[in-house]
């Protein structure tokens, strides 16, 4: 049977964020208004990489999609991170040259690019591990008037029909939808991939386009950052101090 769908080719856009490695020591500079990037290893946000990007690549490899593009809103110092995504196998990448911590601003830039370049499927990670906002994906969907399918742990594509699984407390929901759509990807969707040497070499010559941002208001900015107070000392009670233990749990730890 000849399968006809409304798009000539299925292109997948994967927005990635550039985040500090999970083992990084977090500190701030400029009166706690900026993250201190000194000595930090930057990585592709794991949800974007392991789940969204790898699944997009799998869909392409199995012939269900034609092209996978990475998009990132950020300055040129994030290009090494973008190339990590290219090394894994994305076809090309776009960097919107702007610095922002305003989710709507970022979403606007991505939505604008997706619309002008007819991307019908946008796969995001379920959140980024530095701000954990989980906001950009749904905002892109709203701006494009696409459905937003949140936190999928499985995704398949047949023509333009999307089938996905969403894990719920103790169960699973199987959802069907139609592209164009935005899907946010959670654990389980794909296995982490390690780039090979060829991928790493190829990343150097794949197209990485830089575009100026489209004008858009920035309503939100971070005023300053702070660290959680460190964990306090461990308190030990002997067997005959049960009363004191209960009291401490109630009054100090406030857990009972």
């Amino acid at each position, binding site marked *: 049977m000849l399968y006809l769908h409304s798009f000539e080719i299925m292109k997948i856009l994967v927005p990635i964020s550039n985040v500090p490695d999970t083992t990084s020591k977090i500190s701030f500079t400029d009166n706690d208004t900026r993250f201190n990037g000194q000595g930090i290893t930057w990585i592709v946000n794991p949800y974007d990489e392991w789940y969204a990007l790898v699944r997009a690549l799998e869909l392409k490899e199995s012939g269900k999609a034609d092209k996978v593009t990475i998009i990132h809103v950020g300055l*040129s110092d994030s*290009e*090494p991170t*973008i*190339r*990590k995504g290219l*090394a894994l196998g994305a076809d090309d*990448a776009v*960097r919107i040259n702007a610095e922002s911590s305003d989710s709507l601003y970022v979403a606007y830039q991505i939505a604008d690019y997706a619309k002008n370049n007819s991307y019908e499927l946008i796969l995001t990670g379920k959140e980024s591990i530095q701000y954990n906002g989980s906001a950009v994906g749904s905002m892109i969907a709203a701006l494009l008037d696409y459905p937003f399918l949140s936190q999928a742990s499985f995704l398949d594509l047949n023509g333009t029909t999307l089938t996905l699984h969403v894990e719920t407390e103790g169960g699973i929901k199987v959802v069907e939808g139609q592209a164009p759509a935005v899907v946010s990807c959670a654990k389980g969707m794909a296995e*982490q991939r*390690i*780039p*090979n*040497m*060829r991928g*790493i*070499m190829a*990343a*150097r010559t794949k*197209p*990485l*386009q*830089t575009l100026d941002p489209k004008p858009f208001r920035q309503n939100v900015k971070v005023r300053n950052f702070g660290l959680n107070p460190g964990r306090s000392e461990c308190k030990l009670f002997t067997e005959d101090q049960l009363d004191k233990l209960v009291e401490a749990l109630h009054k100090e730890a406030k857990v009972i």
Partner: protein
Amino acid sequence: MSGEILNDVSTGFDFHLTENQKMIADMIRKFGKEEILPHLMHWDEEQIFPVDLFRKMGELGLMGVLVPQEYGGAGLTYTEYVTVISEIGKMCGAIGLSVAAHNSLCTGHILQFGNEEQKRKYLPKLATGQWIGAWGLTEANTGSDAMRMKCVARKEGDYWIINGTKNWITHGISGDVVVVLVRTGELLDSHGITAFIVERGTPGFRAGKKENKLGMRASETAELIFENCKVHESQIIGQPGEGFIQAMKVLDGGRISIAALSLGIAKGALEASVKYAKERHQFGQPIANFQAIAFKLADMATEVEAAELLTFKAADLKNKEEKVTRHSAFAKYYASEVAVKVSTEAVQIFGGYGYTKDFPVEKYYRDSKLCTIGEGTSEIQKLVIARDILK
């Protein structure tokens, strides 16, 4: 269009790792965490050579780092190669040694001196890890003095008949193909030695005893036995009589491998020591607070840094196709001695725990010692250096 890579071409001194090196190091750490670290003590204890691991490393491109892409390799330079070997060596010296021997000795010999047909036939299999390579120069009675080798080949029509044994050969049992250096002329004639490519399964060629070693136990070391082994003349690399000169050139590059391996082992031992010194408390404080320990760490870190600079310098010269004999000997000699010293101090810093197999430093300590011996002992490196600076 942006995205051009500025650190691509080295102009003068640049001590920064390239983006490629960082990505490769990251790839190896991720791979090793899953595939090497959980198993290395088991392989070490049982002297298991994990063939499957090498196939997987082949898929990643680690088995043909220097082999051009047209022959199935990664097509990278010595700079990335040093990163590959040292990152693997940091996790497990034995796996690092095997990857080094495969890449720079067997594969390297065919790559540098093989004809087009030989390259097309062997490099794609070797570079992808489908085949594991071995390289045989050393014999029981001729180590440093390889020129006196006894293994011989005589010509019979279009064939050569090889007789003799080779010892201490990495992948002597599991290697699918071996480049073997054999006497075809007069004793002590540097033009009397020829390199043959011999495939596993060739009648008259078999593996002998496997060595039971102090360290590098997951890297297989064994004897090769040739009894009237008949090999077609098309299996000769270059011309008859060119083998010894080729071997010396292969070893010039090979020394960078062992320097990189030494560097990896030393870095691994240093990192473990820094971490432990901050965690281990005695007399109510971390042992790192004692100057005796802190100064050891300072010495170790300084020496590791120097070893790294020597190694990358040799790699850089090799990339530029400059003569590298002296500098690869500098790097191999110094880095290997540093590996032994740093891992010895690491055991000292760990105290009794360092003497057990529950902590990583006893393995670094055992593995490191190979580095001052294999591919030319420290004494031989000094001979090479002295000869070069005195000439």
